């Protein structure tokens, strides 16, 4: 892991007296390697290492008796700072029912996460309402309806012939009539380069003015995370990120890339296939695994 590798790099320097700038550069190369292996985007790594370099070339590393530890500490702190040190709660302000919109690439975990979010809110005393707005994927409506039943949350009776913008609008009216206070809208997976589908997402947002537009992203996403996140931010506008499938062994560097490139906070982590596997995001555990 990075800690061992840095110890290895600086170990060879024992007995040479003080660390030189070249020694620190060698350590920074290990940091860069670790981040790239963790799927952090190339440019994000470049900028990140640049920020760390400034502190790393200061007395706290150069004059330290444990330079490897010091460097790791700086990197870890910078990671936490970038990922978002203060937890960003879900925004449930505004008139009831509060609409929350889930968007993202195909297969990232939106439908499952919609149900997880509904359960999370229900347990907190809210009255959520689920809306299946994916009319394209075979049995997608079925999938959310089944999950809704499982978590004991009412769900809009979407017909496959309806269009997603109308579904969202009508569902909001229906939720209000039923006295629900949060509406969670699940949308179809879409490519950020699919103009029509990105326009649809923007149209749904326009129609219901969601309090949150949450990008649901897979923890195993690679370098392309920056392209898709930037695109969703530009074409739809995001207020938060939910990172899914975090309980696997993916290092999760995409989280750093997405956060860096959009400035949008990570709010939750999907940590399993079960419907209660949703956690509020705290940066330090993710920071540790990104470093490896």
């Amino acid at each position, binding site marked *: 892991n990075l800690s061992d590798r840095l110890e290895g790099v600086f170990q060879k320097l024992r007995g040479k007296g003080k660390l030189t700038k070249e020694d620190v550069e060698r350590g920074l190369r290990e940091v860069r*390697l670790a981040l*790239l*292996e*963790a*799927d952090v*985007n*190339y*440019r994000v790594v470049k900028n990140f290492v640049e920020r760390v370099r400034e502190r790393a070339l200061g007395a706290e590393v150069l004059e330290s008796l444990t330079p490897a530890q010091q460097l790791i500490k700086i990197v870890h702190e910078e990671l936490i700072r970038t990922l978002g040190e203060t937890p960003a709660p879900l925004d449930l302000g505004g008139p009831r029912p509060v609409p929350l919109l889930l968007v993202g*690439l*195909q*297969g*990232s*975990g939106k439908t499952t996460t919609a149900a997880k979010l509904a359960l999370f809110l229900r347990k907190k005393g809210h009255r959520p309402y689920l809306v299946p707005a994916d009319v*394209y*994927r*075979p*049995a*997608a409506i*079925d*999938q959310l309806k*089944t*999950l809704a039943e*499982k978590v004991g949350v009412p769900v809009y009776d979407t017909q496959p012939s309806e269009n997603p913008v109308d579904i969202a609008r009508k569902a909001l009216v229906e939720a209000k009539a039923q006295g629900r206070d949060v509406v969670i809208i699940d949308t179809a997976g879409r*490519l*950020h*380069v699919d103009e029509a589908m990105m326009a649809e997402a923007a149209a749904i947002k326009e129609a219901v003015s969601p309090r949150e537009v949450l990008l649901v992203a*897979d923890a*195993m*996403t*690679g*370098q*392309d*995370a920056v*392209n*898709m996140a930037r695109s969703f931010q530009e074409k739809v506008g995001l207020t938060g990120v939910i990172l899914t*499938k975090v*309980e*696997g*062994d*993916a*290092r999760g*560097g*995409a989280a750093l890339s997405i956060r860096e490139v959009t400035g949008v906070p990570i709010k939750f982590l999907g940590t399993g*296939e079960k419907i209660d596997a949703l956690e509020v995001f705290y940066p330090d555990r993710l920071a540790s695994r990104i470093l490896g």
Partner: protein
Amino acid sequence: FEVDRLVDQAFLEELEELLITADIGIETVNRLLEPSRRKLLLGEPLKVSELKRSLREEILRMLDLPTPPFPPEASPAVVFFIGVNGVGKTTTLAKVAWHLKERGFSVLAVAADTFRAAAIEQLVTWGERVGFEVIRQAQGADPGAVVYQGLEAAKARGVDVVLVDTAGRLHTKYNLMEELKKMVRVAGKVVPEAPHENILVLDATTGQNAVSQAKLFGQAVRLDSLILTKMDGTAKGGIAITVAHLFRLPIRFVGLGEKMEDLAPFEPRAFVQALMP
């Protein structure tokens, strides 16, 4: 026309960024760029066109793997679709079914994802659209039992190819990997040598975790080939190079969309050209 420039440090950095952002992986990229870096250090001149050509050839060499015919030559030929959650297994199975039917094969599908909400319905719907039958049981049934029933039905009906859909599973989950091993064992009991092909489905947007996926799935069951999905996005799918090379798995097809026809045979030259224009 473009003047053929000489490789310099700046160009090597550009190239490094290109290859890494394609998800090829820093270790593989370093190995690919090592010869040119050394040349630069020794002051030996190298043309950009020469370097690009040799890199393309090297990647093509990594992708040049023995590729048995598809479908496998068995009757019925039993094919498993496996992989982590959400990569496109079910949709890909439907596309492969369509492809096989176009070629004149009779196809039967087995809905062995008995866990996820509406997984069976999803496959059944695809079966209606493409025109293949789906052997299924109730949600929550033992997936091994569905495999058993499916393969028995295939034999009884003299079907050419059986396509088995499995539940998405993280390679790090012991119980789920054991469940997969059991499904494979059951298949072998019903049809000799089955499954004849285990396809690991990889999502082109995946980063270096694909290596761990291939490694751990490969430790649980024999892996025979890859299908790389979602190549219609902007991800370059470079991880497929490392996975194909390290585990000697030919890439059979690429997924290029969400419709039944959106499957194309993997073309190494086109793939490498798109990677390094």
